[in-house]
């Protein structure tokens, strides 16, 4: 990927606004994410032309239209595949994928898990509103069981994915979660994702006021959020409100701080090689959001696919005169001459 320099931004947020009128429903969480992104992008230290956004189809997938970078609004579910082609063939670009819970996890599930296992240098932002927004409100693979929608009038019987568990099961090297409404946190996570070499998978809880309003209210409402939202900080003990997180078997558990010996409080480390810890962390909250960690769950180094592919090509191609080599290729092996 383009060499990301996270300093001295010379561009401003407004430089990343495109001429297109932004068209989401009033109050849609996508606005906040867009604003956060526009004011974050200068930090990349890249010229605008060095940045490419690829999206699928969905409300969220209109994102690229609103950024003054290169952008492709592709087809449903295929953005990770298309972006893989771009990122693999162009080492000078910063390639971002914007997708939704339906786009990434339903129709696009296969491309997502393969991009993650390959560790293609993509920053994948999954706007999870737990609903199909664009098609007007069917349940998605992250909707809660029993959800009443137009396509599930007696309640959905689908068990949802936990997107972070799925990503970890697919060998993701960078896995994070954040919230549309918390710009500072969102940008912190984007920063870490941008700095990661390889696939960075970021789940962003996004409110859809029209079809799934307040899905993440527990994490936003001042009355409940302190009990529910866990901000992960690398190297710091995991505490929130008067609770702490401790190990329990192979997983994690929430306890009252007062019941726990300080040394038993889990110290968050995103760089552990074994994904078991991050997986445990991903199980701390399920669909109910009762104890929901946000921040970077996992951030480890592993060779990237695109770099590996390019290295082989570069090794083989260095110093080759292509036309001459083609002539030799054609004449290789058994040939004969007619005079």
């Amino acid at each position: 990927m383009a060499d990301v320099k996270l300093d001295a931004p010379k561009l401003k947020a407004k430089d990343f606004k495109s001429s297109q009128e932004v068209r989401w429903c009033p109050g849609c969480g996508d606005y906040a994410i867009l604003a956060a992104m526009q004011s974050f992008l200068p930090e990349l230290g890249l010229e605008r032309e060095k940045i490419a956004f690829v999206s699928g189809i969905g409300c969220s997938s209109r994102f690229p239209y609103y950024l003054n970078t290169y952008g492709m609004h592709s087809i449903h579910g295929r953005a990770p595949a298309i972006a893989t082609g771009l990122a693999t063939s162009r080492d000078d670009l910063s390639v971002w994928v914007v997708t939704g819970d339906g786009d990434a996890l339903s129709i696009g599930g296969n491309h997502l898990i393969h991009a993650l296992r390959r560790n293609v240098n993509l920053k994948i932002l999954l706007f999870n509103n737990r609903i199909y927004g664009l098609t007007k409100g069917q349940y998605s693979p992250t909707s809660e069981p029993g959800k009443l929608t137009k396509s599930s009038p007696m309640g959905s019987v689908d068990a949802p994915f936990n997107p972070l568990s799925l990503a970890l099961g697919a060998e993701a090297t960078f896995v994070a979660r954040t919230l549309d409404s918390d710009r500072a946190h969102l940008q912190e996570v984007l920063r870490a994702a941008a700095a990661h070499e390889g696939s960075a998978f970021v789940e962003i809880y996004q409110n859809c006021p029209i079809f799934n309003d307040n899905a993440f209210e527990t994490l936003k409402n001042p009355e409940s959020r302190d009990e529910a939202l866990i901000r992960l900080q690398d190297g710091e003990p995991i505490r929130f409100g008067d609770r702490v997180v401790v190990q329990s078997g192979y997983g994690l558990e929430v306890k009252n701080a007062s019941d726990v010996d300080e040394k038993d409080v889990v110290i968050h480390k995103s760089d552990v090689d074994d994904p078991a810890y991050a997986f445990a962390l991903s199980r701390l909250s399920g669909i109910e959001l009762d104890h929901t960690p946000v921040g970077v769950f996992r951030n480890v180094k592993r060779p990237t696919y695109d770099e590996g592919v390019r290295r082989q090509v570069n090794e083989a191609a260095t110093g080759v005169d292509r036309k001459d080599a083609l002539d030799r290729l054609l004449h290789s092996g058994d040939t004969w001459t007619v005079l």
Partner: protein
Amino acid sequence: MAEPASGMPQAACQRVLPNPHEENLVNTVRQLDRVVIRFAGDSGDGMQLTGDRFTAETAKLGNDLSTLPNYPAEIRAPAGTLPGVSSFQIHFADTDILTPGDEPEVLVAMNPAALKANLPDLKSGGIIVVNTDEFSKRNLTKVGYDANPLEDDSLEDYQVHPVPLTSLTIGALEEHEVGKKDAARSKNMFALGLISWMYSRPTESTEGYLKKKFASKPEIAGANIAALKAGWNYGETAEAFAVQYEIPPASLAAGTYRNITGNAALAWGIVASGVASDLPVFLGAYPITPASDILHELSKHKRFGVTTVQAEDEIAAVGAALGASWGGALGVTTSSGPGIALKSETISLAVSLELPLLVVDVQRAGPSTGLPTKTEQADLMMAMFGRHGEAPIAVVAPQSPSDCYATMLEATRMALTYRTPVMILSDGYIANGAEPWLLPDMADLPDLRVDFQTTMNAQDADGNDIFLPYQRNPETLARPWAVPGTPGLQHRIGGIEKADGTGDISYDPANHDHMVRTRAAKIAGIDVPDIEVDDASGNAKVLVLGWGSTWGPIGAAVRGLHDRGIDIARAHLRYLNPMPANLGEILGRYDKVVVPEMNLGQLALLLRGNYPGTDVVGYNKVRGLPFTSNELQDALEEVIKNG
């Protein structure tokens, strides 16, 4: 004029010139103008290698030739069974030839399964060289022979040469340092030596080949070479082989030749496209028979700046290729029918994005999984119409293995010039078949370099420079290709209908109609060469028009008719969309147009639909096999006769 290679083993030099009165003498040499030989054995018997070597020898001798390997379908059957039979057919002649031959005249059968599987194809009166060592009770029963066909009269219509190939080979290698098993495995080289003797082929190049191949195992190389020579000498000495044949060299265009399969030529055509356009090549592919070899071949050529990505599925493969195209690479994806079907939604996106994309469909017999190792031409309509909406793309088809190279360069020209997906319709017959190829001169490599957009291309109302990503080249209707990374030209593209010019999303009805027609006009306006008609006499009332791999069989059939003084005109379509501008005029010249296709009449329907008034007669067989020139000759004659 071909220069026959020298260097045959000693014995070959003592040949006697043909003498009509002494036909039955030992080592009579008889001249032939052409012959079709099929080597057949178990998958493990090395028949493909044998065929390849015989081909190399024949090529060096200056004959024209055409070959067709036939691998077992899909699965590896146990040794000695019918589904395990592998064969290799070669047709060579003293003139230029067009097909691997309808019926073999010589069959080398390494075991009962090979005999049983291939006998039905053998020309009546043909020669059978058979490895008697394998005709055990057990092996015979395995393939359902109640009695040994070598011992009853079931082969009386053929000239049978029973040869204990295995034991002769083992015998010949007694003094070599190889075990009995390895010795027995050289029996294919014994057979090759024998047949090389029979058809006066030099074996020197094979010796060199074997030395190189087994450089690290010199005892194996030695054993194989000894087996080869032993086979040769066996022909020379065994009384059973009364006649030796000679096929004089063909008078081919001067130049350097090699034998090449369609898949290899296609892969090399892709490599050449990258060189000619000075673009990096990006292949996104998912393995599938019979297209996988293109992926394999391209994977070897990274030195040309060719990136190959084995994707998780066909949708990802075409998606990655499209992503790479967007980034300024020559995006290519290769597959066969089932995979192409899966790619259709993404190809439709490429139509909307108006980016170059090469889509290779190596057609196989369908529907569904069909017969994966068998050939067919039944994806033409899918290539034309297999996408939602009005989503026109260019379609071209190579006509023979070596033609794949030039066809790929043409496809690339179209894709780059018009910023469009191009479908290349090869098929299993072309993919695996091989023929000599007169190597092109690098000086003739077309210049396919592209002008990427790097500057603004319009002004807004206030006179500011702006970039319009859908501003079209007035001649080609192509839009600018401004790749990510180009300063100042940041823009967004997508699959929703766009306003022409700005590329902004547009729901305007008039714009949509305009865009639909513009995309159609762009494809319809692609510059393709006129089609040429071969109507030597000028008297033909019937035109035979083919496309794709039927070129060889149709050509051979037409030649047969011409030889017999029957008038017929012939043309072959490489450009299926758009069709050549002169096609309508050409069709109009003839009373009837016969269209042979390995499908139920797909081109025929297009011709009837696009050129009303043409009397199109389809000739259709969907057997998973190429047409034979004989059947075509009969069919064409029939049409001509019935006026």
